[in-house]
Each structure stands twice: as structure tokens, then as C-alpha cells.
């Protein structure tokens, strides 16, 4: 469930990035890299788990599924927070700078 949630987040971010490309004013690319990186790593985790559990892997207990989904959502939220910090620090549109330094008339 965590893998699935992250893959969906990665796909949505990639579509948003593609729509805005080649401009990257919102730095959506950061989110794409982060979510795809995590998805690939969780894919490996899933393969190892499947090798251990076999068909049981596809029939998780509802409580486990809910916990994994909760984790997946938390991971997506953490990714968004990291992205927001990078966006505000790099400030590609100069919004933060403009808010900090007002023009003197």
C-alpha cells in the first residue's frame, strides 16, 4: 500500500511537471525525483517480501493495509513538506525576497 501510494504520487507529480515544462518555477521536479526514488526502493522491498510470503503478499490483513496506507500518506506529506522548504529557500519566482525587501519609494 505504501508502494502504491508513492507510485500514484510520483505519477501525478510527473504529469504536473510535464505540463509546466520546460519552465520549472514551482520546482515540481524535486517531488518527482523524491517519489520515484522512494517508489523504486519500495519496489525492491515488495519483491523481497513477495519472495518470502508468496501469494500471501497480495492478501494483507485490513489493519495492516490501513496502517500501510496511513504510512504512505505520511510519506507523501513529508515529501511535500521537503519540497515546500526547497521551494521557499530557492525561491525561483523571487516571492520570498519580494516579501522581505519592499521597495523604498
Amino acid at each position: 500500500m505504501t508502494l502504491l501510494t508513492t507510485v500514484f504520487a510520483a505519477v501525478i507529480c510527473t504529469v504536473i511537471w510535464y505540463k509546466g515544462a520546460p519552465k520549472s518555477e514551482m520546482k515540481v521536479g524535486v517531488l518527482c525525483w523524491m517519489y520515484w526514488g522512494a517508489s523504486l526502493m519500495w519496489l525492491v522491498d515488495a519483491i523481497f517480501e513477495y519472495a518470502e510470503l508468496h501469494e500471501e503478499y497480495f492478501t494483507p490483513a485490513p489493519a495492516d493495509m490501513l496502517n500501510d496506507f496511513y504510512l504512505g500518506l505520511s510519506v507523501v506529506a513529508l515529501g511535500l513538506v521537503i519540497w515546500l522548504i526547497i521551494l521557499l529557500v530557492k525561491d525561483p519566482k523571487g516571492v520570498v525576497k519580494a516579501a522581505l525587501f519592499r521597495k523604498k519609494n
Partner: protein
Amino acid sequence: MACFLVPAAEAVVTTIATKVMKSKEANPETVKVQLDGAELVEEEKIPFSRKLGWLNKLLWGGSALLAFEHVWHGEVVPWFPFLTAASNPADAAEMLHEMSTAGVTMAVLVTAVWAGMLIVSSVIEKRAKKALPAES
């Protein structure tokens, strides 16, 4: 248990390599390409350091989110020795086994996907050059 440490270690190495490469790279080569099939525009060819940056971002991003998962499961703690499995030899052995199997596979898969991206980008670059009308 601590599988994310392997791709994180790779990320450290590739980040250093990127910084070194960036400082040694000369001015990027410029090529004329048709981006939207209409006008010819002069674009800079992506230097290898930037392509290596893609791998950095994949590795750092993935490792950060996986580290959070380990915190969630109580496998990483904010006090010494930081990894709960490191507190006794039996768990430590299991952790090292997981790092050498799942951790290494994660690093290899991410690197393989990045290598695939390099091949695809090189093919796109070559096609863009070939599609150009002969310069008079």
C-alpha cells in the same frame, strides 16, 4: 531494518563526484535543435554532472522517505546507537544481511534506472541532431 543506508551511502559518493565533475567541466557544448518541430533554437547540451545530479536526487529523495518509514516502524531512533537492531548482535547480523541483500538491490535498481535514462536521453539527443535540416 537499515536498508536505506546503502543507497544513502551511494548518494554521498555520487554527490561528491558531481561536485568534483562540475568544477572540472568546461563550457557546455551548444547544439541547434527543433524543440517543437518549428523553429531552430540553440540549446546547451546537458553536461554529465547534471545527469549525475538526477541520480543524486533519486538516491537522496528515496533514502529520506525510506528513513522516515524506518522511524515509523521504530527501527531508527533519535538516541545512540540510532538503529534499534544495532543494540544486540543477533539483530545486528540480521540488519547487515538485509543491507547486503535488499539495500544493495535498491542501490543497483536505482542506478540501473538512471543508466536507462542516460541511454534514452542520449538517443533523444542523437535523434534531435539527425532531424536537423542540412546547414547551408
